């Protein structure tokens, strides 16, 4: 025992809840990039269209939404061109939803690797978020092309100063998806039930977020229930995104700050619980 300081690592039954091993994560940063690369390369290997597939999903969803919610149901889009309005919502929402769903199954999806070799487990969800960022980037290009088209033909909107918040918005979406996903992933190592909920839960959550309607419309029509939408941290994020790029939407610093706070809390909580579960999940998954 007197030579304890000579050992440079220990494995113990109990570790501190807040020992999050960030330095270890940093030491494995190369792995993060290699995993992102793997995800990207394996996505388009043996496909003809390759990364073009990233375009197809938001494009078709936009078309469908325009017909059903825009034309058939006649939901207002704050005076914006309908496809542009939906495309903005879908692009942002997809990034969040992808981060959330992929992260929530990270333990199960990687049980084989996690069961055989140790590396800081946090690398996996981080790589998911970064991988999805690539996809989001490609979809943003599509959105920008569409924006350009409408700007020079119909010109119904103004880009606002809030576009400067775009990097913050992206980070918030990533961290919110990451945090929530990690919480779910940690809870599904023992019981899988929750995993089945995530699939349609995310879909339902979309309707409680201002993806297919503007917040102003919800406040007008259902003033009694709109708080559900307002308290949803994704609402201010998407509203800010739309306000920044298209100049319409409800932006205020209060709700933006609220979303940031919730995101950070969920992230911290998610990281802690993820680290807690990571040590022994192999025995229960």
């Amino acid at each position, binding site marked *: 025992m007197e030579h304890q300081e000579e050992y440079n690592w220990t494995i113990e*039954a109990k570790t501190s809840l807040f020992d999050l091993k960030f330095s270890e994560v940093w030491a494995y940063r190369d792995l993060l990039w290699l995993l992102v690369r793997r995800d990207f390369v394996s996505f388009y290997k043996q496909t003809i269209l390759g990364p073009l597939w990233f375009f197809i999903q938001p494009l078709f969803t936009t078309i469908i939404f325009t017909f059903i919610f825009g034309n058939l149901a006649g939901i207002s889009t704050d005076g914006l061109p309908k496809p542009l309005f939906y495309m903005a919502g879908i692009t942002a929402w997809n990034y969040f939803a992808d981060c959330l769903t992929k992260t929530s199954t990270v333990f199960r999806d990687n049980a084989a690797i996690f069961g055989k070799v140790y590396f800081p487990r946090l690398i996996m969800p981080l790589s998911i978020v970064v991988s999805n960022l690539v996809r989001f980037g490609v979809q943003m290009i599509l959105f920008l092309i569409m924006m350009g088209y409408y700007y020079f033909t119909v010109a119904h909107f103004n880009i606002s100063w809030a576009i400067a918040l775009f990097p913050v918005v992206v980070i918030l979406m990533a961290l919110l998806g990451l945090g929530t996903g990690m919480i779910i992933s940690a809870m599904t190592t023992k019981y899988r039930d929750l995993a089945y909920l995530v699939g349609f839960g995310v879909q339902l959550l979309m309707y409680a977020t201002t993806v297919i309607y503007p917040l102003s419309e919800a406040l007008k029509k259902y003033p009694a229930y709109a708080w559900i939408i307002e308290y949803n941290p994704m609402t201010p994020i998407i509203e800010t995104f739309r306000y920044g790029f298209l100049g319409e939407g409800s932006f205020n610093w209060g709700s933006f700050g609220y979303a940031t706070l919730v995101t950070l809390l969920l992230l911290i909580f998610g990281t802690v619980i993820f680290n807690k579960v990571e040590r022994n999940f192999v025995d229960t998954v």
Partner: protein
Amino acid sequence: MSDIAIKVENLSKAYQLGQIGTGTISRDLERWYANLRGKEDPFLRIGESNDRSTKGTSNVIWSLKDINFEIEQGDAVGIIGRNGAGKSTLLKILSKVTGPTNGKISGKGRIASLLEVGTGFHPELSGKENIFLNGAILGMRKKEIQRKLEEIVDFAGMERYLDTPVKRYSSGMYVRLAFAVAAHLESEILIVDEVLAVGDAEFQKKCLGKMNQVSKGEGRTVLFVSHNMGSISQLCQSTLILNNGTLEYKGSTRKAIEKYLESIATVSSFNREKQTDGTHITKIILADDFNNQKNTFVFDENINIITQVDYGVQIQELFFSIIVRDTNENALFTSHYNLESQNTTLKLTIPKNNLLPGKYFIEPVMHVPNVEFVDRIDFFLSFYIEDTGGEHSKYNNSNLGFINSPGIWL
């Protein structure tokens, strides 16, 4: 004692048997629901439910119990023990794949563990891309892999396939590449679990050579689990024997192997001294056709396993089975006998010319199929088949398997 590389103190690991209780489901759901509403701070409660030691002892099995040992730097240490003795659990804890329930391990230097070959290999990626990915998973920096790339490729002997997706590799190539990556890790401690069982003989030799070089030449510490006593004695100076989760012996490899082989069985008869009332096996002997009790038979001699059993309360569907195993404890075949007849003396004959020369274990079990074990002997009886200088001696050193070929040449 500055040259201790790994120090294990009071290490224990418990696994929970059966399903995880309903109490935790509601607790987890409650926590999840509370969290969904963002209402409380359930950190402390999570700490409780993950704490295995608070669970009742009845449905908990100790895979490792109070293990203590030290391994000196530069030692190559073998770990042997029967299936389920806790070898893999020990390696898993050492490689941080799972945490211990109690106890502590301290160590010096980076650990590289090879519990499986090719962990994280992606079938779509090329050999080269996988070298980087696998290396990074094992904890190497990209620069480090770059520097060693040539050496790795050389060792695996597969320059030609470097740009081919690994899904087109043969399993042997797969293993070679994976071992090559792990063997070139700049770690102070290398942990290897029976991966050498795969791959051809030549490559196994190469691996052993590499591990030898790693431990003797470079002074790195190696921990090696194997069922192959040959590889253990070639590579390791000292060896640990694990038995039912406890450390039974630690010392020189020669002695350890001797002890281990002794412990797994050199008994040719079994006589239960304590007579109990229930249904049980009372006596087993091995004998030839003239009722001479023995445990070494020649190839063309019948082996008779004569068992005495006692019956207690009548049990429906009671069977007696004899499992014949090789020295690695793999089951070769099993013979079942229905005990409906309530016979007290059972005789199983393994006909001559069926088992090839070698050592075999038999494990007698009384059981109700798929329901319960009524009685089993917790050690194996063994017997030898001697070569009589027949057909097989021509191939004296090659592995011909265990069962004489039932095939017929036309």
